[in-house]
Each structure stands twice: as C-alpha cells, then as structure tokens.
C-alpha cells in the first residue's frame, strides 16, 4: 500500500501509520478495529519467542489472514518493519510491559483492556509514556452512537451541571458452568484454561494466569463513560462484589457482580453496577444504561441504541435479538488516535486517564475486601516511580 492516502482537494495527504499487532492472542478485534480505518495498515504481527504454542498459533493465524509476517521477536519486528503504532493485546499480565517496550522502540500505543493486573505495572506505564511522549489509547466504547449523543447532550448544557451519573454495565454471557455446579471432589476450574477456551466466542477478556473479577476486566468501559462526561476526579469509593453466577469465579475467588459508589470532586456522585450475569439474564447481550441527573434535567440512555430487532425460527440461543446498527466505534477511536498523533494532543482515553481508572478499580476492590469506603488521593506523576 502507498505510504500516503489519496489527498482530498482541501487537505494535505495524510500519513498512513504502519501497525504491528504486538500479540493478538486475546482480542484481535482491537487490531481489526484499528486497521479498518484507512490511515492504519497492518504490516506485521509480533510476539515474544517464549510464549506457549497456543499463543504462537493464534498470532500465526492472524498474520496469515492478513498476509503479513509473524515475527517471534518484538523489538526486531518493530525495527525492521518501521512500525509507527503497536496494537497490544496479549494476556493481561503482559499488557504494560509490551506497551512500554513498543513505546521505547518509538511506537505509539493502542492497548487492550484491562490496563494491567498490577499497580506497579500501571505506575511504570504511566511514567514511561509520559517520558517518551508517545500517544496512548486504551481501547474503549466511547465512540458508540449512544455515548457520542450523551456527551453532546451534557456539553450542550441542557441538563445543567451534572449531579449524579449512574451506570449499568451487564454482560449477559456465561463464563462456563453456573455457580454450584461443581460436584464434590472435582477440581477447581482453572482460570487460564477457561480463558484460553473462551477465545472462541470472544469472552476471554480475562485472559492470563491471574484471575480477575468482572470489575477489573470490564470496569474500564463504564468508568471511561464517566471520564467522557466529566473531568471531576474520583475521590472516594465504596464497593460490594461477590461471585454469584459462575463456578469459574467462585473457584477463583473473584467477583462476577460488583456495585460501586463513587464520590467525585465538586460534589458529583456516581454509581456503577457491573456483572457477567449469565446468558439467560437478557435476550440481547445485557442491559447497559447511563442515567444522568443534572441541575436542569435528567436523561436515561440505552447504550445499545440504535438497534434493530431480528427474530426468526430456529434462531440460535446465543444470537442477540436486538442488533446494534450505525456503530462507528472502531472508526471513531482510530480516527481520534490518528488526530492525536498528528497534533500531539492526548487521545480520548490516554494513559493518565487509564491509570486513574485503574486506581479507581483498585480502590473498589479494596473496599470490597474491607467493607469500608476507600479515599483516593491525587498522586503526582513523580510519585509513580522512575519507570525502570
């Protein structure tokens, strides 16, 4: 492909960014989403040599599909293929390390969620991205039509000053057998083995060795909604969580349902209910809603709209009955990222905001453990360590 896109009469030719999928073992939809934009081109798939065979096989299959090489050496691939953008989607434990290495190799970063499983890694990423000055985008859903409209509504001032934001984020999906189904004497469900198998239907968001609850895996999405609607920082968190639905979560001691009370600067409050609540609990993937209360008005927003109802004889149980339409999330995220690179401005969900969301989730998990609210103090970049 040509290194530049066709110029419009009004604009200079826009640079085409050469992309590497730096591991595609989890959600290849991140890479697919980015390269669906005309300014991003996949040139190589890269990963580390020591990863297990199943991971190599996934990377190879992805490379074969797009007819690009698969290189088992991250730094060599980024250098030899002159990569501009690294799209990072390995197991959660490797997220930050691969992102940092790619940024050190001169790449801008698009990273899959969650940010990481460890605070030290989050701090290291924050420090290094700030030092290197590269753009960073955490994959998110803020480009969905309902979110774009909600943001416009808030920015228009029609609701007045926001006083409360309530977020429901339920994935009506199963995660293996229901809680209580394991017979006495049978072994505990292995987290990583389950996640590897769950790749088939894309529900392997928690891929990795370390078990993660739904709040840690998916919390970035609704909390990114909150970030999109207000600049106010979270100052205090109270949360409850438990495994209610799946044996996988019960066996691994991580929640599949959580509720969070958030208190923010300026007297704004928010709440979040999040869960992987089982396929039977909703006909179309899960109820995802935003409810906003402002000083002049309020709004109830269904994240899944607009949609079209599709029903037919012998319809598979897992097929959503309500199908989303006019979805441009991939394009809008990629477009925002391109513009951020062009201008040097932050992306719609940059490393600093992603780090704050990680800390909010971390505080919520601590609150679940202690049964008491947890205060979040502001932490300067210099307190996050030297990035080594």
């Amino acid at each position, binding site marked *: 492909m040509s290194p530049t896109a066709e110029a419009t009469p009004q604009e200079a030719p826009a640079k085409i960014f050469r992309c590497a999928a730096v591991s595609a073992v989890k959600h290849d939809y991140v890479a697919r989403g980015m390269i669906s934009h005309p300014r991003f081109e996949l040139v190589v798939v890269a990963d580390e040599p020591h990863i297990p065979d199943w991971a190599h096989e996934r990377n190879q299959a992805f490379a074969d599909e797009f007819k690009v090489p698969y290189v088992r050496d991250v730094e060599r691939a980024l250098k030899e293929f002159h990569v501009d953008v690294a799209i990072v989607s390995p197991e959660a434990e490797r997220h930050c390390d691969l992102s940092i290495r790619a940024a050190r190799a001169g790449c801008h970063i698009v990273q899959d969620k969650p940010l990481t499983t460890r605070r030290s890694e989050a701090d290291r990423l924050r420090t290094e991205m700030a030092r290197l000055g590269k753009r960073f985008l955490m994959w998110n859903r803020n480009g969905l039509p309902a979110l774009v409209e909600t943001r416009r509504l808030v920015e228009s001032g029609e609701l007045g000053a926001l006083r409360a934001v309530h977020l429901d984020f*339920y994935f009506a999906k199963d995660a293996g057998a229901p809680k209580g189904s394991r017979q006495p004497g049978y072994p505990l469900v292995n987290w990583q083995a389950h996640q590897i198998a769950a790749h088939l239907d894309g529900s392997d968001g928690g891929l990795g060795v370390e078990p993660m609850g739904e709040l840690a895996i998916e919390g970035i999405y609704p909390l990114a909604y909150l970030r999109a609607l207000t600049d106010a920082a979270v100052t205090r968190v*109270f949360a409850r969580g*438990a495994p209610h639905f799946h044996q996988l979560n019960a066996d691994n001691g991580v929640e599949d349902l959580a*509720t969070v009370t958030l208190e923010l600067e300026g007297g704004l*409050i928010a709440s979040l209910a999040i869960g992987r609540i089982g396929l039977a609990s909703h006909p179309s993937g899960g*109820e995802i*809603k935003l*409810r906003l209360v402002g000083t002049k008005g309020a709004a109830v927003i269904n994240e899944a709209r607009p949609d079209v109802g599709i029903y037919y004889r012998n319809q598979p149980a897992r097929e959503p009955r309500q199908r989303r339409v006019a979805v441009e999330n991939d394009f809008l995220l990629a477009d925002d990222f391109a513009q951020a690179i062009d201008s040097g401005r932050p992306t719609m969900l940059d490393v600093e905001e992603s780090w704050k969301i990680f800390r909010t989730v971390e505080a919520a998990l601590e609150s679940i453990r202690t*049964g008491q609210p947890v205060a979040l103090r502001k932490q300067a970049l210099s307190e996050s360590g030297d990035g080594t």
Partner: protein
Amino acid sequence: MIRLAVAGVDDATLRDLGRRLQPVRLVRWPCEEADAAAVLGPCDAARRDLSAASPSLRTLLVCGDVAAAGLPSDSSGGEIRVRNLDRSRPSRQLIRQQLDAGKLGTPALVRSHRWTSCAAVTSNRLPSGLLIDIDVAQWLMGSPAELVYAAKSVGGEAIQIHLGFVAGGMALLDWGRIPEGDEYRSLSVLGSSGAAYADDHANRQLVFGGGPARTRVADETLRGMANLLADFVKELDGNRVCEKVNAAWHDAVRVGGAAMRSLKTGQAIRREDF
C-alpha cells in the same frame, strides 16, 4: 360489609378504586361509620385527624410514604398498619412472584432509580421514596441489609444508598431531583439464574405534536392501590395479625437512619451499629 374510609386520593381515584373493590364500600375520610381507614397518599387533614379518629375505627392502614413523615402516637386505641404501596404495584408483584417461583434463582442485586420533583434533601430526613425503596429492596432480597453506605451530591439533588446483604447480596438505590413533571422509576433485580427489569424507559409511548417527540408512561399506581386495599380487606376479614409487615417497615426506617449516619460520618454502618 366493610366500610372503608380512604384519604390521600382525589375523588376520581376514589371512584375508580371503588369500582374495582366492590362489594367493599369506599367512602371519603373522615367518616364516622367507617370500620377501617386507609391513608394512601399525603393528606394533611388525615394526619391531623388521626389522633382524633372515630372510636369505631378499629384499623388504620397507612402507606409508607405517609408514615415516613411520622406516625401518630395515638389512634384512639386502633391498630395502625403500615404498608408499602410499592409492594402492591403490578410490576413489583410480578418480580416477587418470579423470585418466589425460583425462576430468577437467589437474588444477588436490587438496583432502583427514583427521580422526582420533590425538594432537594437538606434536612436530617431521607426522602420518603428512599425508605420505600429500602423496604422493597429488603423484601425482594428476602433478608435485612447488613451494611449501609450512603452518598449525597452537592445541593442534595441526588442521594444513593448502597446496601450489603448476607452471602454477597447487594442493592444500589438512587434518588434524584428532577424538574417538575413526570417522575422516573426503574427497578431491576439480578438473580443467580435470571433477571427482571422494570424500567419506565422501556415502558414509554411516543407522542408527536410538533417539535421534539414527547413520551407518556402508563401509570400502575391505581392498580397498585387496588391491590393494596384488596389485601387490606382480606386481612380485616380474616382478622390476620400483620406485625411482620409492620416490622419490615420499621426496619426500613432503621436502615434509613443508618444511611443518614453514613452520610454524616462518611463510613459504612454495620447492622449491629444501626
């Protein structure tokens, strides 16, 4: 035949209720000949007159939102029964029936939203709607809350109460103040094997009359009142003792008190400290 005096509703509602409850005779409060009385909504006159109620009035039914403002200390020896009208709403009854039938499994989360044009919260008292929602949450969860945390927005225009139950159960109750006009209600219950969603958002009809579309929601309050009064009449007929239901309301008030303490202290309050 029972003669029931009713307060807190307008004449049209009283007539509508009367048609649904025949042969019970509904009359407007106050009425000297009434066997029992029901206060279904805010009614200053009824509140004033409660302590001077007719000696023949053997039982007084008071809806939760009325009781939230304080029960009279004296009802001339009659019995006061506090009921939560929300429990009688068709949507809430259906959800409870599904839970009782085991279709939803063990309740894990009750999530409710209630937006009204009532005054912002500035006093030491929770909005009555939140007490009602606390009672509904405990009723649907099937157990009392063990832990309470509450947060309030600046200006008191929004409050949320976060409840913890045994075995990891939880509830999040949101109250918000919106401009005068329609109110908004939403209740969802997630169980271990299913879920129920009762949301005004999904139950609204579109109306076009030039400019942006408006919406209308079919109100279930009348049917809820009829259900409540029908149950009350059954109780009176059977001389059933209803201490448990009264106790549930009083416990909701205790939880509400704990929520107020949580607002003041910024701490989660455990039941042993309610």
